[in-house]
């Protein structure tokens, strides 16, 4: 039941990028969401923020030209676009928590139909906990998107009625972009906005087992 036609990670990144409007201030979470930057066309002026203290983040430098004092939140070397700026951590998280970032895109372990997010802790008792900026990013932006595969490798749905992993934030995710569908989340529950080519709403209901509205 898990051999549905899926968007590739690249296709998924391109799909999210479509929904990011010109002029938006965006934070792309560590991991999968960073791919989105590759699909923001240069003529569409989108400004990327990184919570370690820069806005106007540009692409990775050419190999050998890294400046290890110019890095992103994933600790990768980056560049600064013309018009970018640096600031300290409190100002940076004020940007985030004060609602100044338009869109934040995060990966997730689980998302609930009402937009609860679990992406920082697997809940295993011996796991060393680490949260970083996850909880701030989850609740701070005007809109928080999740980008993830809808199912785990073993076929379990990561979209759930109630998260079983420890929460990152409550009701904070407004939209889920997955390899099988784009789904809006709200206090009223999940509503499918768009299906991946070849996927039906019944497929989705079957593999997720959650209540899904349509249209």
């Amino acid at each position, binding site marked *: 039941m898990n051999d549905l036609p899926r968007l590739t990670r690249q296709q998924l990144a391109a799909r999210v990028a479509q929904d990011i409007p010109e002029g938006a201030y965006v934070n792309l979470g560590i991991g999968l969401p960073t791919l989105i930057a590759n699909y923001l066309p240069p003529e569409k002026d989108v400004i990327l923020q990184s919570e370690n203290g820069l806005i106007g983040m540009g692409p990775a430098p050419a190999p050998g030209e890294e400046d290890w004092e110019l890095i992103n939140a994933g600790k990768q070397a980056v560049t600064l676009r013309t018009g970018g*700026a640096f600031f300290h951590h409190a100002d940076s998280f004020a940007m985030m928590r004060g609602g100044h970032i338009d869109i934040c895109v995060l990966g997730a372990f689980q998302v609930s139909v009402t937009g609860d997010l679990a992406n920082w802790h697997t809940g295993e008792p011996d796991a060393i906990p680490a949260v970083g900026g996850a909880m701030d990013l989850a609740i701070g932006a005007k809109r928080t998107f999740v980008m993830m595969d809808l199912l785990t490798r073993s076929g379990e749905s990561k979209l759930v009625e109630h998260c079983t992993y420890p929460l990152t934030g409550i009701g904070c995710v407004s939209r889920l972009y997955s390899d099988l569908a784009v789904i809006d989340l709200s206090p009223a529950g999940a509503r499918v906005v768009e299906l991946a080519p070849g996927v039906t709403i019944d497929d989705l209901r079957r593999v997720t087992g959650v209540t899904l509205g349509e249209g």
Partner: protein
Amino acid sequence: MIDKKVTNCATAVRAVNDGAAVMIGGFGTAGSPDELIDALIEHGARDLTIISNNAGNGDAGIAALIREGRVRKIVCSFPRQPDSHHFDAAWRAGAIELELVPQGNLAARIQAAGAGLGAIFTPTGFGTLLAEGKETRRIDGRDYVLEYPIHADVALIKAYRGDRWGNLVYRKTARNFGPIMAMAAKHAIAQVSEVVELGALDPECVVTPGIFVQAVVPVTSTQRQGLAA
């Protein structure tokens, strides 16, 4: 292309609706967005809540807004000045509401709004008239008053240079409330002496990153500067 440049103050202040909460930067002669305030008076928005350090002096700026009856309420630290006659008259007539806030609490509450805090326990004002009726708490042996963030619909501020992304730098003590008001308002309008090319401002020295600014208006005249005292 992101271009926040607005050609004139009249266009910029159309963002101010009747009943809006409007922050206005400036301390004394430094940093007052005089031309934006003139345009706001011309624009005609009324029933405003003004958040500013002072309540205007002389016959221009916030004083003129009050004279024209546009201000329902003012939130400030120091309304009384030798020539604050328009505020004085309105206040004595009961025509304007005053929320008096110690200057440090004013700055901290504006900053808290910009940073998304729900409330702060601040040391200033404990045991005074200005904390009457407010929640207090002793923390680590010191007394604090619970104060809430001050948000605004629009901020009118004056900066020195700005670019089309809205990045700003200020000049000397004209910086004062500008950076924190830009952060606390939904829509921040900065009048600047000069709009410079993107990239002309050193990214290490940008004081207000453009994310906090929605409109940049070049205003080269500084007719009142140096006159008020």
